[in-house]
């Protein structure tokens, strides 16, 4: 009897710890690469308020970062070390910039998208999502706009000339539930879902794969080397996904921890810089020479 009690105690004591080894080993096997911190932007401009609720960021080809502060309800254009410039548009926006430098601001409350010329002039205003649908959007390399809202992803034709009929069967709205991140490369569209997976679509909107995520699902960005970058908002971690959406790497600070305190959104540039919107700051990182 005493021996059986000892066996049972040992079973209870050590068996539940076995998964810890398995989980820690698998997590450890995800390759990490150091992302050096180039700058942490908190102050924006002399006399102007600092960042308090940086929730979204868009990268322009000229090196300017457009940061949407949802607490202050404005967008600030920053290009360190120069002082930032607050834009007049008021609201909670998602900023994205296309390859020719046109800023797109999606008002997440009204679902209206504003497009500005590289000179800063408003040239299009289009409702791309219903009001209060918490929409997300991204720009494909060919400039076409993809919008996730209300459980579907839609694609717009060039110059925002209506829905793209080459995206999915009619009504050209591809189902994608609880989308929290959206990115497009030349060959694929990626949607991270709150259920902890990333769905991969072909350019015609066919679902070609779905992969489980290791981190929390969050904002996506089509980074260099054909990789997709995933922002894990509550932890500030940045994961690297391959073309199929599999987690293949993780960016870390020089100390081996998450590179930012939080990561609500991220945006990268062709010259391998990455910006992470982290609430009270914008963290600018140097991406490694080659992503995992």
């Amino acid at each position, binding site marked *: 009897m*005493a021996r059986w009690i*000892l066996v*049972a*105690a040992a079973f209870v004591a*050590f068996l*539940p710890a076995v998964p*810890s080894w398995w989980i820690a*080993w698998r997590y450890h096997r995800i390759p990490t690469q150091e992302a050096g911190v180039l700058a942490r932007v908190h102050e924006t401009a002399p006399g102007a308020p600092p960042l308090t609720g940086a929730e979204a960021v868009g990268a322009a080809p000229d090196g300017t970062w457009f940061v949407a502060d949802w607490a202050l309800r404005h967008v600030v254009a920053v290009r360190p070390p120069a002082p930032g410039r607050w834009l007049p548009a008021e609201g909670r926006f998602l900023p994205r910039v296309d390859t020719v430098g046109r800023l797109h601001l999606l008002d997440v409350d009204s679902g209206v998208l504003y497009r500005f010329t590289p000179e800063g002039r408003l040239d299009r205003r289009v409702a791309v999502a219903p009001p209060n649908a918490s929409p997300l959007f991204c720009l494909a390399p060919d400039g076409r706009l993809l919008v996730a809202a209300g459980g579907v992803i839609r694609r717009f034709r060039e110059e925002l000339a209506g829905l793209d009929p080459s995206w999915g069967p009619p009504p050209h709205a591809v189902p994608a539930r609880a989308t929290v991140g959206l990115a497009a490369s030349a060959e694929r569209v990626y949607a991270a879902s709150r259920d902890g997976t990333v769905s991969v679509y072909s350019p015609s909107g066919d679902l070609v794969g779905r992969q489980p995520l*290791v981190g929390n699902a969050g904002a996506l960005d089509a980074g260099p080397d054909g990789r997709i970058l995933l922002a894990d908002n509550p*932890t500030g971690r940045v994961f690297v996904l391959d073309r199929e959406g599999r987690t293949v790497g993780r960016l870390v600070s020089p100390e081996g921890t998450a590179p930012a305190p939080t990561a609500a959104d991220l945006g990268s540039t062709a010259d391998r810089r990455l910006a992470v919107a982290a609430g009270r700051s914008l963290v600018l990182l140097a991406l490694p020479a080659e992503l995992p």
Partner: protein
Amino acid sequence: MIPSRIGAAVAVALLTVAVRLYPVLELGNHGPDFENYRQMGAATLRGDDVYATHPLFPYAPYSQVIPALCVGLADTIGLPFQVLLKLVNLAGDTLLAAVLVLALWGRAGPRSAVVWSLAFALNPVSVLVSSFHGNLMELVPVFVGLALAAGEASRDAAPRARASLVAAAAILLGVAVALRSFPLLLIPAFAFWLASTARGRAAFAALALAPAAFSAVPYLLWSRPDFLKEVLSYSGAADIGWLAALRGIPLLLRDLKLFSFGAGLLGPSKALFLLAWAVSVAALPILGPRGCRRAALLPPLLFVGLYGGVAAQYLVWGIPIAVVSQDRWLAAYSLLATAAMGAHYVAFHPAILLATPPATPVEGPLSHAVLVLANGALAAFCCVWSVRIVREESGAASPAARRLLASGALLAALILAVLVARGAAEVARALSVVVVPAPARGGVPGS
């Protein structure tokens, strides 16, 4: 005899289930901890590093599988996650209640065994933590209690069986350590109780540390920065104890709820508690085996009596030790602890006590008065109970040793008085702040 012993254990187990089942199913399911547990469970299921997700989990990774299993099971069978998590507590409580009957039957007699087992089974502190709050801290007293039962059984066993039972006691105590770290402080008392040689005590301690170490090693090897950052970061909050009593004074006098209070006193009070615990460990050699078993009550009592950052669920972990020691002061402790917990929940987390979160505050002057008085009385009671245990169990010690212990207690009381005075000054500062009421919407002050 055996059927009645088993019958009594089954009856107490059924009673344990009966008093907990309704709150498990219906009450407190919107409590503050469940979302944290759910996120932890989801992270574990997807193979994430729980420490990198900052889940307020400063413990060994051993218990991460429990929320994960509950998340997976909830998705599979459709039962609410909260209920499944509480059912884990319920299973632990039921097992312990039955085991306590069996463990006490021979030594205390049938009637006492049942009565003392009921002191755990029907204890409102345990019911609140396991079935209302749903905090997994409840599993700590379960495994501490099982370790005590194994230790008790070893006392009358044949030598080979005794060795197995002592090893089982160490491992079961080790599970409690792996679950929530704090039972680490019980290891010396258990070791002195169950092992008579230095080598035996060292072996006991090594076994008791093994489960936590076994689960933590991979994180120390491969995820050290996140693991250490999380494990070393938590210092508690002034929810229960003397600091909570002081925190409640502005609430009582001015309806001023301080969500951040006494942060500067947590460090000194932790040092005081650890110092007092170290003194209690130093006193173990003079207490004798029975005294050492009862001295296992000292860490939880000193924790509540001296430390400022006590959360409500910590009040449960000394209960099985008092039950096995048949210490009647458990009744008064349970009364004060229940009052302090209840008042804390009413003021700060009413959803723990109710079926749905209340639309309006449920607190009032009475609950605020209870919050202050019960917490102050509980802390004082725990200090007095600690002194009483040491005084009673050190009766055979030399007068010089007893005088030394008394001096230590006096010194601790003096330091505590200084800390309380500092806390009182912080209360005075909070009360001296003039709160200007906001003008009514659309109105202009003074108009």
